[in-house]
């Protein structure tokens, strides 16, 4: 099962996603796929806040800021216990894939890497909860680079929503079902 969870900044989407997977996780091995690259103190604080939120919930953390398909190699392959995972979040992953080592990769390549990687992971992950970000409604016209980033985010969200069993938007901490069932 693939569940896509979206929302704005400070919408409570992370807390909701963590609750969601925790409710599913009884008999499964539960992974948290962290994608954020830390550049400064603020980033560090953000990571700490999220770590605190996850504490005691039994997550195994995998850090994977690019090349998401590589997560498969870091997961245990004991078939008697199935793996489930929470990936947080697509907006970091897209930024990391797009703006890497002073270079800018084009939208199509980024999309291919992320969608391809996730499709690959879905073969072995029983329940995959993916958090993305609603970056589409601030009415600002950005420069070409940022616009390409937003476009990539939009297209990736659409692709993920297509293959998702459930799409949920979190608004002020309240889940709103956008799609249920394929």
């Amino acid at each position, binding site marked *: 099962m693939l569940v896509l969870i979206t*929302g*704005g*900044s*400070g*919408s*409570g989407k992370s*807390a909701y996603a963590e609750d969601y997977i925790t409710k599913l996780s009884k008999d499964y091995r539960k992974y948290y796929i962290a994608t954020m690259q830390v550049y400064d103190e*603020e980033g560090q604080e953000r990571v700490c806040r999220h770590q605190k939120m996850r504490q005691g919930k039994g997550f195994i953390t995998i850090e994977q800021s690019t090349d998401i398909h590589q997560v498969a190699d870091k997961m245990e392959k004991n078939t008697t216990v199935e793996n489930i995972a929470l990936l947080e979040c697509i907006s970091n992953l897209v930024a990391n894939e797009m703006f890497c080592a002073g270079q800018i990769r084009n939208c199509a390549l980024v999309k291919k890497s992320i969608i391809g990687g996730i499709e690959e992971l879905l073969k072995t992950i029983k329940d995959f909860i993916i958090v993305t970000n*609603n*970056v*589409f*409604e*601030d*009415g*600002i016209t*950005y420069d070409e680079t*940022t616009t390409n*980033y*937003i476009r990539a985010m939009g297209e990736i969200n659409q692709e993920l929503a297509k293959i998702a069993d459930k799409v949920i938007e979190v*608004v*002020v*901490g*309240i889940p*709103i079902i956008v799609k249920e069932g394929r």
Partner: protein
Amino acid sequence: MKLVIGGYFQGKLDYVLGGNMLTDFCIVDGELPNAEQLQESKDNGKTVIVNHFHEWMRASIRQGKNAEQEILEFISNAPGCIVISDEIGNGIVPIDSFEREYRERTGRIMVKLAEQADEVVRVICGIGQRIK
């Protein structure tokens, strides 16, 4: 308490007023009512409406206030009030650190207000969707 959210110019205040007389309400804009206004509304059975709550948040953060504590205290004193706020978090994370803080803190306090609210309504095109 009732929380009403939505994008700008979606008719949130009109939705809340719902054709009632303006005099049925004590409406404050981008601020919290002072003790006098609060008392006056209590005495006269008026519903307090905090319109443009996000603007109050923005000003409070700018002034270095503990806005979260202040609004929660206010709501415990005015449990029947209506808080109206724009949704401001649905965009690219701003480069400016104040703008980032404003979005984050406003988002998080709204989650908290939504938890406490008896009713949460999201207004789009003037139409209210009751989401809690």
